[in-house]
């Protein structure tokens, strides 16, 4: 009877009520069941990958030994890193500009800056295909310059996200802090570096995480802008799946998941989870 001797559930202690636990469990299952299946079957000792036939890690070896796949992964990581850095710079400047200054056509720019997020990806992909063809973008550059087209396309849809999170963070900035810094002798640049950047730092981390992951897993736009020598990881996985769903694909995907989770964890640790939560 010890179970019933514990303290009764208080009115707001939802986490201890049965229906809430069931609901949370259902949500978790819905979100993570596919991923869990993916990870489990990456260890499946079967070529066809439909029925469980025993545990093996050989497909990890196979995936890591697949030069094309590794190259695609390196391409993806390079593009994501470049796109993140450029999006952070561009997005932050755009956010600060829209928040701080008044200038002609501000309303128009404000309204259209998030267009790359709204426009369907397929349209953006086709648009980039046409654009790069029209300007005669060279396709025979050496690595990493051959990634230029994809990187530019990724920056286009990543930086509005940075602008959005930075702007929402700027809205909570107390302008008196800027004035206080100036009052103490700081120049515009020193105010930006010492007061504004520390204030928007959580938004910068959030924006960087968003950009990196968006770029890393983008398929549609990349598909239209990649050439034969610039296959990215998602595009490569897609072409592999077209032949057959082997545990190799699962293994490669699992590695990518592990990588993203690790990166997110490091970023959150570096910033403090609390600060990230404040941004949203």
């Amino acid at each position, binding site marked *: 009877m010890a179970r019933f001797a514990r303290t009764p559930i208080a009115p707001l202690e939802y986490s201890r009520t049965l229906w809430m636990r069931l609901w949370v469990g259902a949500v978790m299952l819905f979100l993570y069941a596919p991923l869990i299946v993916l990870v489990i079957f990456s260890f499946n000792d079967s070529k066809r990958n439909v029925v469980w036939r025993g545990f093996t890690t050989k497909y990890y070896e196979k995936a890591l030994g697949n030069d094309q796949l590794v190259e695609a992964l390196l391409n993806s990581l390079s593009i994501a890193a470049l796109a993140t850095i450029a999006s952070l710079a561009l997005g932050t400047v755009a956010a600060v500009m829209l928040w701080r200054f008044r200038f002609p056509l501000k309303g128009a720019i404000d309204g259209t800056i998030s267009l790359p997020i709204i426009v369907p990806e397929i349209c953006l992909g086709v648009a980039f295909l046409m654009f790069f063809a029209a300007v005669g973008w060279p396709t025979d550059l050496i690595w990493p310059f051959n990634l230029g087209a994809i990187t530019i396309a990724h920056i286009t849809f990543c930086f509005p996200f940075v602008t959005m999170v930075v702007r929402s963070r700027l809205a909570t900035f107390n302008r008196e802090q800027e004035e206080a810094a100036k*009052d*103490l*002798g*700081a120049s515009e640049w020193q105010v930006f570096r010492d*007061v504004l950047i520390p204030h928007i*730092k959580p938004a910068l981390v959030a924006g960087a995480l968003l950009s990196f992951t968006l770029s890393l897993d983008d398929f549609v736009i990349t598909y239209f802008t990649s050439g034969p020598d610039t296959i990215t990881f998602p595009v490569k996985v897609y072409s592999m799946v077209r032949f057959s769903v082997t545990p190799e694909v699962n293994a490669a995907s699992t590695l990518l998941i592990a990588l993203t989770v690790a990166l997110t964890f490091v970023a959150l640790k570096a910033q403090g989870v609390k600060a990230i939560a404040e941004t949203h």
Partner: protein
Amino acid sequence: MTEPTRPIIQIQNVSKRFGKVTAVDNVSLDINAGEFFVLLGPSGCGKTTLLRMIAGFELPTEGRILIDGQDMAGIPPNKRPVNMVFQSYAVFPHMSVADNVAYGLKIAGVKGGEVKDRVAEALDLVKLGGFESRMPDQMSGGQRQRVALARSLVMRPKVLLLDEPLSALDAKLRAQMQFELSELQEKVGITFVTVTHDQDEALSMACRIAVINKGDVAQLAAPSDLYEYPANRFVADFVGSVNIFEGKLTLDEPDKAAVDCPGLGKVYLNHGVTGPHGADVWVALRPEKIYLHVPGAGKAVTAAAQDAPDGHNFARGRIKGMSYLGDITLFEIELETGARIRVSRPNLSRHDQEDFTWDDKVSMHWRADSPVVLLG
């Protein structure tokens, strides 16, 4: 003060317009070196705009501001020899207390060792010694304000500007900070210019007060002069509480004057007013300057002689409202003319508040030098 007064800030014919709104309207005033100067006025009167123009965050539309003899036109806030304590304190949340206080010194290129000494000295001054490594979010509002004070004082400015410094503090802390700010100002000898809408704050801290109304200086005077000799109805009403009666000046000689007020009756003064005979004037009478007592029963020749000492003014009425405030009781009395007057009475003994109650008939008297005759 024995040394001759020297203006540290000269505001000359300064106006500030935001579009069609005139925030500051042709203001000229001098603030002396070493004084505690207060800009007092209701919200929206332009006092904060004036302060921000001194700091350089707003530029005058017309006129000029001189600090220590130097014209401030074209000099940005970061190059002016003044520092400001903001209403929100604006302490940098991502810096420790010591880093906050050291910020201005580091920008100015002061060497590390000296920075440390001056930061410690400034923190001691505001009684925050030992708080160096605290973060602002671990401190109370009052402590954050001290950080803001230290951060400005450490720069050794010629003038310290304070924007509503006490408005965010609770009543007890506010009273304590009033004393501390005055004490601090005397200790460091820096000119303080404070903006406030709170008359108690202004009266208790200031050497001189400029009352601002609708962008203009309504009166510039020492606290006691402001209270006892208000220059106009706005000042009389804004600083302290007051009864104001409209009347006509019927007698005006060097040693006496009389004003005929329809509401209050004839008011006698024992000094001249120097206003035109028959002019429309206003009589201002502070509630605490009126003595209140039970009307004497009797057979006296005149009503005045009955209750009031010689040379006092006299009136009668009925108590229509009372509020007991502990130290004083405030009465609202309906005069025989139907006008109302407010009288305050100190509760000198424990049972004083029982002397009067609603609908009691009372008589009042006040000295002939108590009323102030206002021409505007």
